[in-house]
């Protein structure tokens, strides 16, 4: 009997429906699932960090390879915990200074390299080349072309001028500013559209799992007979859904204020 497979399936169905039950209302079943996810996530993360970082980079070099330089990261680690004591908390500033300095250095070079220079260059399209490759407007290539290039340049300038506060916003500036706002709204709209698409995709993933469509042709051994995983999943989904509905109703009834005492 595929006991492990069935237990895993039942658990995934229960946890999915428990999380989705929040859409109806906040309830203890949702809270249980939420806390379980947090706990499991932190547990997996801790184990991965131990075996991925502490063991190969600190414990093995210190205890097996006897590399004394590894004492320094250990020392910085210990100093970080000085933060919890009132008397010695200043010592924690040393490792924090290392962390801040390292990240500032990494961020600065990365931003300058990858974002500033490349993106400034890309915001000045070669219109001649655009015309040769895509013409004025290429429907098959997401609207690429000279018109898109001009919209990019003009929209970018309008956005920048919208945030330029050193000049008085007279009539021409107000018009440019409005174009800037319009460009920003279009950008936010596109981001919102993509976000909605992402959320629906996640819902599709869970719905497929609840309907057993993720593994439609798999068979599960139940004693001497074989059942389709998809059929078993659907029955389990219906059963779990009913169980959660009844449990929430019972819990709400128990916690509801007694009308006779009021």
């Amino acid at each position, binding site marked *: 009997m595929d006991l492990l497979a069935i237990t895993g399936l039942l658990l995934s169905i229960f946890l999915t429906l428990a999380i989705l039950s929040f859409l109806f209302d906040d309830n203890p079943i949702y809270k249980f699932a939420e806390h379980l996810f947090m706990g499991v996530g932190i547990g997996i993360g801790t184990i991965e960090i131990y075996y*991925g970082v502490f063991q190969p980079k600190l414990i093995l070099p210190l205890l097996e390879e006897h590399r004394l330089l590894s004492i320094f990261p250990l020392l910085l680690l210990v100093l970080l915990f000085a933060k919890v004591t009132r008397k010695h908390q200043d010592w924690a500033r040393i490792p924090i200074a290392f962390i801040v300095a390292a990240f500032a250095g990494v961020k600065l070079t990365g931003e300058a390299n990858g974002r500033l220079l490349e993106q400034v260059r890309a915001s000045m399209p070669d219109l001649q080349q655009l015309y040769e490759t895509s013409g004025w407007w290429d429907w098959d290539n997401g609207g690429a072309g000279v018109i898109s290039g001009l919209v990019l340049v003009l929209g970018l300038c309008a956005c920048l001028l919208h945030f330029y506060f050193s000049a008085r916003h007279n009539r021409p500036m107000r018009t440019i500013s409005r174009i800037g706002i319009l460009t920003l709204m279009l950008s936010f709209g596109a981001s919102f559209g993509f976000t909605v698409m992402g959320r629906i*995709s996640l819902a599709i993933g869970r719905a497929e799992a609840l309907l057993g469509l993720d593994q439609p042709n798999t068979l599960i051994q139940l004693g001497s007979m074989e059942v389709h995983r998809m059929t078993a999943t659907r029955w389990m989904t219906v059963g779990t859904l009913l169980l959660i509905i009844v449990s929430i109703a019972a819990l709400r009834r128990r916690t509801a204020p007694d009308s006779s005492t009021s």
Partner: protein
Amino acid sequence: MLDLLIRFQNMDRRWVFLGMALAIVLPMLVPFSLPFKVDQRVQDLYDRVEALEAGDTVYISADFDPGSRPELEPFFRTHLHHLFRQDVRVVMGTLWATAPPLVKPILEDIAQEYGKEYGKDWTFLGYVEGKELAIKSLGQSVRKTYPLDDRGNKTADLAVMAGLDAMRDFDILTSVSAGFPGTQAFVLQIQGQYNLEMASACTAVSAPDYIPYYQSGQLFGLSGGMPGSAQYEKLVYASVPPEKRPRLPATSGMNVLSIGHLYIIILLLLGNLAFFLTRGGEEN
């Protein structure tokens, strides 16, 4: 009519959720097929991978977790099929602590399906902590960033790593990214510095942020969310007869996605209509 619109505006939000659930579940129970076009961003990604030769090596950074599985797993699977089909060697690592239990079995299964040998044709280096610092380190030396692979072997001793150390030694870098650290951190930290040929598969939420990287040439290809994965599936399995194709989850999800979008568009239209038509009435 006005009463109906006022009632629509004050409708309990739970009816909207129920409608959404039906809009997703019903198309799944009654399958149908809607056509979709392949985006230039995905086409470029596919073309570059097609141009790889047997023996070339690709580094995949699989930075996603179960939360983004429906969007990225289809691309990840298809990409591995695409690479192994062309006898390209695969070196994979991850910067997400929750990724290994998800991505490792998929890589192992697909490598086995193509008869690929661990250590010679592919390897999984496991998880490394450090986020952007780890990426910076990968740019300089993969061997130093991952001294041991996921099975405890010395990375430098693996046959698949022969002649490879810095990220620029790899023919392509693919970032399958659900957020930070992921594509953006790779682009900012090492892509420009080492002039790497890099592609990305990202969640739909991240796609608008990464499209400028594709337009500027920092990424040679980009697959955004479930539609990107579906388009990539369409290209990779175009030459495979339908009866021999595996289940294509992103392609089948596209129809449901379209109905879900249609439902939201209808709600938006009705909501705005109700707002503008009832505004005068409520003011009176």
